[in-house]
């Protein structure tokens, strides 16, 4: 029982990271139907920005987190302008290939400039161990930070998407671009904001991972990027709560599988679940096929 609880806490922390990355995937897909495979690399760059700020400038955790989010949002907007906007009306396969190219470009540009070595993230958050149930459950304060920051960011996103003008414009564009334009919405700007918000969440995830696991490298975005993509599809791509749900679901499944002796198979389990879910519910777990009246 204690072990299960312990693993659930670890699972929620890992799930938070997946969920933050998955949100960006799902938002971008929702608005321009593009699987932005470079998204995992934005998360990696977020980690490096956090690393540089804490190591070389000696900034604390929160300022580094915020600046890293800002840098990633600008990077996301630039990637959209330079790589995706020119091919917005071309075939899906062209868009997919472009996304993969951007991903490789970011990875190996970073390899060139920061070397492929693994770097150690400085201890910006004091590790403080809390014990519960007479020491049977150990919680690192870092877990709590990760979970709280994730919840805060998600609440913020929820507010932006549902209560602000920009958020409503984002939803309108994702539902019907032409109709949104007829309302006076600048579609290009709205798509740009969507990339900015999604990328800033990936940047935050990057810093959180650096703090949590202490090590970063230029290819660190590949596997979590894929996993977050799985999470987004699991929950139903294009659906914001689906990405959150998928992220947590995947994080918990992975930790539980590892905890009970299957760590070698954890990725296999993650992808098997994806395959099974897609066989049963092709629109993802929270995806609905709403019949609309005409």
């Amino acid at each position, binding site marked *: 029982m204690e072990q299960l609880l312990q693993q659930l806490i670890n699972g929620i922390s890992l799930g938070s990271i997946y969920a933050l990355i998955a949100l960006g995937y799902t938002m971008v897909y929702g608005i321009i139907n593009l699987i932005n495979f470079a998204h995992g690399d934005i998360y990696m760059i977020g980690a490096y920005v956090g690393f540089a700020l804490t190591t070389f400038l000696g900034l604390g955790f929160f300022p580094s987190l915020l600046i890293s989010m800002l840098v990633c949002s600008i990077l996301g907007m630039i990637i959209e302008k330079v790589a995706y906007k020119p091919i917005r009306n071309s075939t899906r396969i062209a868009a997919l290939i472009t996304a993969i190219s951007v991903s490789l470009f970011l990875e190996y540009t970073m390899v060139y400039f920061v070397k492929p070595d693994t770097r150690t993230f400085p201890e910006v958050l004091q590790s403080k161990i809390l014990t519960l149930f007479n020491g049977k459950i150990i919680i690192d304060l870092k877990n709590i930070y990760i979970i709280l920051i994730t919840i805060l960011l998600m609440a913020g996103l929820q507010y932006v998407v549902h209560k602000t003008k920009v958020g409503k*414009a984002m939803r309108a564009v994702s539902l019907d671009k032409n109709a949104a334009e007829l309302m006076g919405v600048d579609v290009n700007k709205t798509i740009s904001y969507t990339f900015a918000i999604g990328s800033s969440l990936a940047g935050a995830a990057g810093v959180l991972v650096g703090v949590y696991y202490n090590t970063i490298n230029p290819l660190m975005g590949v596997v979590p990027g894929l996993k977050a993509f799985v999470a987004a599809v699991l929950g139903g791509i294009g659906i914001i709560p689906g990405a959150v749900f998928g992220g947590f679901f995947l994080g918990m499944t992975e930790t539980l599988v590892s905890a009970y002796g299957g760590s070698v198979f954890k990725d296999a389990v993650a992808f098997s679940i994806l395959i099974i879910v897609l066989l049963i519910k092709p629109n993802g777990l929270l995806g609905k096929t709403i019949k609309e009246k005409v």
Partner: protein
Amino acid sequence: MLELSNINVYYGGVHALKNISLKIKEGEIVTLIGANGAGKSTTLKAISGMEKLRSGEIKFNGEDINSLNVPSIVKLGISHVPEGRRIFSKMSVMENLEMGAYIRDHKEDIKKDFENIFSLFPRLFERKSQMAGTLSGGEQQMLAIGRALMSRPKLILLDEPSMGLAPIIVKEIFSIIKDINKSGTTVLLVEQNANMALNVADRAYIIRNGEIEMEGNSKKILVDERLKKAYLEG
């Protein structure tokens, strides 16, 4: 108020609009009628900036608008209710109306306009927190019109508001179109239901194969047996 002079629009290789010229005076209801594929919707799209012109000129209150993009044209006061309504199905009725007011900033004014829309369409008020996709066809059309009015347009372009609706609802919609016009909005109405359209309109243009075939007082067209045979019953 609005003046199209010799506009030409191509769809790929197809010459969709051929030298269309058309004039709308402030306060009028003008209808553009014709068969399916004659170029009615394309004319509206050209006005709202959704289709680019090959040649010709569109002037709105004296200002050249052919090179403007869609949002800037909305800001000048032209609101387009597209064919098929195109409401935001997964947003609530209220949010759809808020999107209609996207270009406006003054919160108090917008609030007042919500009330106006709800008094024009009481059924929308009953359903204001419902997802727009769950409304009936007639309610969706009302929402599409209400949403377009939320930008406080000087000119509203209506594309086939009667499409797919029961006759009784069509009547209701047309009487609302008259009300909208009475409260000061100029209307350009595209319709396949020519009888209904001619009944509410002041003037009419008949379009055929991308060309304006005739123009005139709609009541006269309505009683002209020859025209009726040629355009309205075929």
